[in-house]
């Protein structure tokens, strides 16, 4: 079969697919999953995980509101970079995504409700995409809000100087980068944990292994580093952290790549992991007694 035949087949296949139905099914799945995942008491600890840094900065703002030194702004910019890179990427988003995305399928197995999803005329690939997007929407909404709150509170205490840093200086660009990186982190970790939940009955242990891998990936060869989510995120962070002490392993950039390549690389990694999830979902069986 030559390339022309292959293209013709792909076009024929594409024309035969009910794309509009897929679209409406995905929007319904997203709606239902968001209601199920976002507005529930079970998720309170995730809200706390996301908002703890903002609450600390708010306390700092209230306590130190009569002692504002503009020279402190540069240090606070570094602190904010540390909060995003060390807390959110390594802990907050990581564990929140572990909870949100592993629950999408494994949670339904625990609650014995997954069979309802398998008994409707929805392709399982569509189910994976719908659930992934729903999880992504929840995680992104939560952490973008949290990062935005941290950013706002960090510069709000400096009054006009802070305003000037944001609107006339590099502030707005940094905020844009943080929001982009946060969204990519949510989707990247989300894809990983979705796949893990389809591979393992208890994805917690493999999740911890992934956490270890993300931490030590920088000491591995360049090709291996590309299999880590933080490899791509680090290249997109607008403020570099000083490389000091044992935490340096989290901040060093072994082989710099352009932001465009970093975004594209991470999106490719996400698509590859989702493709794996689509393959795995076909092997999934409803055997609640084994859970």
């Amino acid at each position, binding site marked *: 079969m030559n390339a022309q035949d292959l293209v013709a087949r792909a076009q024929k296949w594409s024309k035969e697919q009910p794309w509009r139905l897929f679209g*409406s*099914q995905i929007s*319904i799945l997203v709606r239902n999953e968001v209601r199920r995942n976002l507005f529930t008491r079970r998720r309170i600890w995730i809200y706390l995980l996301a908002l703890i840094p903002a609450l600390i900065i708010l306390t700092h703002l209230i306590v130190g509101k009569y002692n504002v030194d503009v020279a402190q702004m540069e240090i606070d910019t570094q602190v904010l970079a540390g909060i995003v890179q060390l807390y959110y990427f390594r802990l907050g988003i990581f564990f929140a995504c572990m909870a949100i995305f592993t629950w999408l399928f494994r949670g339904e197995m625990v*609650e*014995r409700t997954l*069979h309802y999803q*398998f*008994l409707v005329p*929805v392709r399982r690939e569509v189910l994976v995409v719908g659930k992934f997007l729903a999880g992504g929407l929840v995680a992104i909404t939560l952490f973008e809000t949290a990062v935005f709150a941290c950013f706002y509170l960090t510069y709000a205490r400096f009054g006009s100087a802070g305003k000037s840093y944001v609107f006339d200086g590099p502030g707005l660009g940094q905020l844009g980068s943080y929001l982009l990186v946060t969204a990519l982190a949510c989707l990247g970790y989300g894809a990983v944990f979705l796949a893990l939940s389809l591979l393992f009955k208890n994805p917690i242990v493999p999740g911890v292994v992934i956490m270890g891998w993300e931490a030590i990936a920088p000491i591995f060869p360049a090709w291996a580093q590309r299999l880590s989510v933080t490899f791509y995120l680090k290249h997109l962070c607008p403020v570099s952290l000083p490389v000091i002490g044992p935490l340096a392993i989290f901040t060093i950039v072994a082989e710099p790549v352009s932001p465009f390549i970093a975004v594209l690389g991470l999106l490719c990694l996400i698509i590859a992991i989702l493709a794996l999830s689509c393959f795995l979902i076909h092997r999934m069986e409803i055997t609640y007694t084994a859970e």
Partner: protein
Amino acid sequence: MTSDARQIVFKNVSKFYGEVLGVNKVSFSLQPGITSLVGPNGSGKTTLMNLLTGLIGPSQGVIYVLGLTPRQPIEFFRQVGFCTQFDSFPPGTTGYDFIYWPLRLHGFGRDQAAKLTNEALERAGMAQVARRRVAGYSKGMRQRIRLAQAIAHHPSVLVLDEPLNGLDPMARAESIALFEAIAKQGMHVIISSHILEEVDRISDRVVLMSSGYVVAEGQIREVRREVQDHPMQILVRCSNAARLAAAAFELDHVVEAKILNDGHGVLVRTRDAEQFYLLLNKIVSGGLVEIDAVAPADDDVNSIYQYLIGSDGGPA
């Protein structure tokens, strides 16, 4: 499409959970109508239903439902409705939402989905409580709301795993009437139940299962014929029981003839019912005995089940 587009076909289907047998080498095909899966707990009824609907995959063999497989979910699940026996629901859902949203996933628009939802709720007798949360329903109501969801999209194949569990007598009668009405429209209704008398009454055919094997399959009377070597019981009400019993004993295939306590009838156990009926005809035409009534005493699912696997089949 590799099989009859009106049949449900199992071809040499086996399912193993590791080393544990689910079902083994199951082969049969079902025509439209009501089919009952009967067997004790662990006999493989639910496994068979889960295989049929793709909730689990076969270790061996193939299954076609109206020529389709669950690997074509869009076409397949428009034809198939499955009321499982899992008594669990998405948290916080109301009865209405439980039916409405799956219909939207079928591709129905808002109005059409709402219309079908209300229709299904009416048919299941759940319209009055549809806006309440399912978590507050009684067991019977939960059973009926699952049934409503299974029938809402008007499937051609309705699979019901223990659908009468938890229903009060009136709801049970209504459900049975509903199954019969669906079957009369030329659809497949596949029911598993341990309430043998009820499935016996409504079934067109039975599939008897034991330890993962299909031990008999077909119309109840056909299945009975499959067990020819086991004597069949025939109850004869007559004027002269002693004479009838004596005549019956002269036949080789009659293994027992027991006069009833009231003296007005005989319970005959025979390996050849047709020959015995011929004898009865002779007796009647000879005027020796006046026959009031003749009826097979064990031509129901429960008796057949006892013959085949030495168990009464339930409760599951």
